[in-house]
C-alpha cells in the first residue's frame, strides 16, 4: 500500500471515529445539530449504540458505600459463602429500591470482608444506606408465661419462609401494612403455629425488635399474614424490600461513604473540558513553534489522537472519572513525545543523509526508546488498574479510571505517533521536497 492510500484509510477511519466522538447534540454556527445513534438490525442481531460518554460517580453524581461484614460468628470455611450471600442480598435490595445500574462487589483484605456498593444518581444516601445496612432478620415468636414473667421464644418460622412481601393499606384504618405470603413450607409452619396459639399473641420480631404484636383469633391455613405496625408508607415500603430480598446472614456496618452531588460533578466536567482545550491549544502551538512544518504534522496526529481516544472511550465504554479525565489530559501531553523523539532524531540524521532517508531512519531508531519507555509506563498503569482484582492492591474506581485512560492514551499515542504521523510525513514532507528539485 502506498502512503497515500494508507493516509486515505486513516482519514476514513478518523471520520468514523469523529462521528462517534461527537456529542449527541451540539451547536455549530448557531444551529443545533443532533447526531443519530447507531441502530442496526442484521438478521437477529440488533446493534443499538447511542455513543454517549459514561461518567463515573464523581462526575454524574452518586454514592460509593463500603460495608464491612461482621464475620466473628461465622466459621472460616463458611465465610466466603456468607460474604457472597451478603452481596446477593444487597444487590437484590438495591435493585428493588430502584437504582439504575448499581454496582455491588466484594473485597477481602487481611481478614476484613467488605462489600462495595456504588449507586449512581442517588441523592438521598441516608435512606439507601439504612436500607442496605439492616440485617432484616424476621422471626415469629411465641409468648410463654404470663404477665411479668412472659418470655418471647423464637419459633422456626422466619423470613426465609416468605414467598413475598407487599405494601398494602388496611381497609378500616387506611394505614400501610406489610402483607406476607408464605412458601408452601412456611404455610404449613404458620398454620401449625396459629393453631397452637389461638387466643394468644404471636409477636413478629425484626432484628430482635418487636415490630408487631398481633393476637391470633383462629388458625390461619391460607399462608397469608399481615404485619401491622405504626409505619409510615415509606417505612412499610422499606420493610417490604428488605423482606423480599431476604435477611443478611451477618450484620454489616458502613465504614466508608463518598457521595457527590450531580451539581459538583457537572461543574467538574465543564472545568476539565476548558482546561483540556486550553492545554491542547498550547501544546499545538508549541509544536508548530518548535518544529515548524514537522510540528504541524505532529499536531494533525495529536488531533487524530484526541478523536480516536474519545471514540474508544465511548465504544468500550470507559467509565470516565475525574482522575480519568486527568489521565486523558496527561496522555495528550505524552502523546507528542514519540513525535518529539523522532523529530529530534531527524534533526541529527538530516545532516548525514537525504531528507526522506533520514526520516525513515529516525522512525526506526526512535522506536527502541519509545517501546522501552512506554512499556515502563504501562507496567505502572497495569498495577493501578489492577485488572485481576488482586485484593492486595487498590480496587478503587477513580484510581482505576485514571490508569485505564492513561494506558489507552499510551496505546493510541503509539499508533498516532508512529503510523499516522509517519504516513503524513511521507506524503506531505517528501512531496514538498521533490517539488523543490
Amino acid at each position, binding site marked *: 500500500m502506498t502512503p497515500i492510500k494508507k493516509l486515505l484509510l486513516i482519514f476514513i477511519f478518523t471520520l468514523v471515529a469523529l462521528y462517534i466522538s461527537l456529542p449527541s447534540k451540539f451547536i455549530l454556527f448557531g444551529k443545533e445539530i443532533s447526531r443519530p445513534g447507531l441502530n442496526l438490525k442484521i438478521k437477529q442481531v440488533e446493534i443499538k449504540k447511542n455513543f454517549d460518554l459514561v461518567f463515573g460517580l464523581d462526575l454524574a453524581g452518586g454514592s460509593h458505600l463500603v460495608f464491612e461484614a461482621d464475620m466473628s460468628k461465622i466459621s472460616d470455611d463458611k465465610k466466603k459463602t456468607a460474604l457472597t450471600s451478603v452481596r446477593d442480598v444487597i444487590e437484590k435490595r438495591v435493585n428493588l429500591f430502584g437504582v439504575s445500574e448499581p454496582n455491588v462487589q466484594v473485597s477481602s483484605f487481611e481478614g476484613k470482608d467488605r462489600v462495595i456498593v456504588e449507586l449512581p444518581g442517588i441523592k438521598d444516601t441516608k435512606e439507601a444506606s439504612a436500607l442496605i445496612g439492616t440485617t432484616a432478620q424476621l422471626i415469629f415468636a411465641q409468648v410463654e408465661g404470663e404477665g411479668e414473667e412472659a418470655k418471647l421464644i423464637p419459633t422456626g418460622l422466619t423470613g426465609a419462609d416468605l414467598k413475598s412481601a407487599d405494601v398494602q393499606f388496611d381497609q378500616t384504618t387506611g394505614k400501610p401494612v406489610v402483607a406476607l405470603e408464605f412458601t408452601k413450607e412456611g404455610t404449613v409452619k404458620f398454620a401449625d403455629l396459629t393453631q397452637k396459639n389461638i387466643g394468644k399473641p404471636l409477636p413478629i420480631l425484626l432484628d430482635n425488635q418487636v415490630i408487631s404484636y398481633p393476637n391470633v383469633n383462629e388458625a390461619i391455613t391460607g399462608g397469608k399474614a399481615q404485619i401491622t405496625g405504626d409505619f409510615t408508607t415509606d417505612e412499610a415500603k422499606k420493610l417490604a424490600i428488605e423482606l423480599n430480598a431476604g435477611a443478611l446472614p451477618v450484620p454489616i456496618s458502613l465504614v466508608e461513604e463518598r457521595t457527590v452531588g450531580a451539581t459538583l460533578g457537572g461543574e*467538574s466536567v465543564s472545568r476539565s473540558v476548558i482546561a483540556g482545550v486550553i492545554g491542547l491549544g498550547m501544546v499545538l502551538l508549541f509544536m508548530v513553534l518548535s518544529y515548524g512544518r514537522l510540528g504541524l504534522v505532529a499536531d494533525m496526529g495529536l488531533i487524530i489522537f484526541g478523536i480516536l481516544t474519545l471514540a474508544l472511550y465511548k465504544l468500550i465504554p470507559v467509565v470516565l472519572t475525574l482522575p480519568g479525565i*486527568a489521565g486523558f489530559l496527561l496522555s495528550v501531553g505524552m502523546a507528542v513525545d514519540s513525535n518529539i523523539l523522532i523529530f*529530534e532524531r531527524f534533526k541529527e540524521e538530516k545532516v548525514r543523509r537525504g531528507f526522506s532517508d533520514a526520516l525513515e531512519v529516525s522512525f526506526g531508531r526512535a522506536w527502541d526508546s519509545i517501546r522501552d519507555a512506554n512499556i515502563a509506563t504501562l507496567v505502572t498503569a497495569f498495577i493501578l488498574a489492577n485488572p485481576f482484582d488482586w485484593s492486595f492492591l487498590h480496587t478503587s474506581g477513580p484510581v482505576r479510571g485514571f490508569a485505564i485512560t492513561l494506558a489507552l492514551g499510551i496505546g493510541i499515542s503509539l499508533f498516532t505517533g508512529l503510523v499516522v504521523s509517519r504516513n503524513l510525513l511521507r506524503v506531505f514532507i517528501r512531496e514538498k521536497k521533490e517539488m523543490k528539485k
Partner: protein
Amino acid sequence: MNWMKYRPLYLLLSMVMIGAGLFSLFRWGLNLGVDFKGGAMAEYKTQNVISTEEATRKIEEKGIVVSSAQAIGADAYLFRLGNINNDQRGIINTVLSDLGGTSEELRFENVGPSIGPELIKKTVYALIIAASLILLWVTIQFKSFKFGTSAILAMLHDSLVLLGAFSLLGHAFGAEIDFLFVTAMLTILSFSVHDTIVVYDRVRESQKKLGGSLYDLANRAITETMVRSLNNSFTIIFMLVALVLLGGTTVKWFAIALLIGTVSGTYSSPFVAVPILVTWDELLKKLKRH
C-alpha cells in the same frame, strides 16, 4: 558538553531539595486527608454568603465537633469533621440552610478509621511491585543491573522530592495527602523511568556503534536527548498547568503533584540516574584495578 564534570553540583542540588523535604517531613509531617486519617468531609453550597466561624459555632452547639471550615469560591463551604452518622449529617444541613437561606450538599465523604492503614499497606505493595517490575524490565532490556538500579534510585529521588514538597505545601497551603496523591505518586514512578530509559537508550546505541568509556557515552547521550526531554516535559507541563489553574478544587492538588513529579522526573534522568550510573561504573573499575 561535559555534563558529568558537574556531578557534585547535581548532588548538592538534589540534596538541598530532598533535605528541605525531609526537614519538613520530620518537623511538620504530612497533612493527611480523611482517606488516611478517617473522619468526614462535607461540602455545601448555600444561597447566601455565610460566615464559617458562625456556622462552626452553630454546628458545635449541636454537639458535632468541627475540625475545620473553609470557604471554597463564592458560595461553597467545606467542613472537616470527625466520623458522623446520618442524623448528624442531617443536622448540619439544617443548620446551614437556616444560616444561608438554602443549603445543598455537594459532596459528602465519611471514612472509617480502618480504611487508612489499609490504604497505606496497599500503596506500599503497589510501589514495591511497580518498582520491582520496572527494575526487572530495565535490567533485561539493557542487560545490566547497574542501569536498572540507577533508574530505580532516580525514581526514589523523585518520590522523595514529591513527598517532601507535599509536606511543605501541606504545612504552608493545606495540601492534603489523599487517595489521588497516591495515584500521582505511582504515575510519577513510571514517568521518571520513562525519561531515564530514553537517555539510557542513547547510551546503549552509541555503545554499540562507537564504544568508549561510559563517561563519554553518557555526556553524549545527555546532549542528544536534552532538547527532547525539555520539549516533552513542556507539553506535559502545559496540560497540567491548565488543569491546575482551571480544573477546579478536586483535581488541583492532584495536578500539582503530577506537575512536581514531571519536573523532578525530567531533572532526575540526566542529573541523577546517569551520574549514579557513571559513578558506579568508575568505582567498579577502580576496584578491579586494585
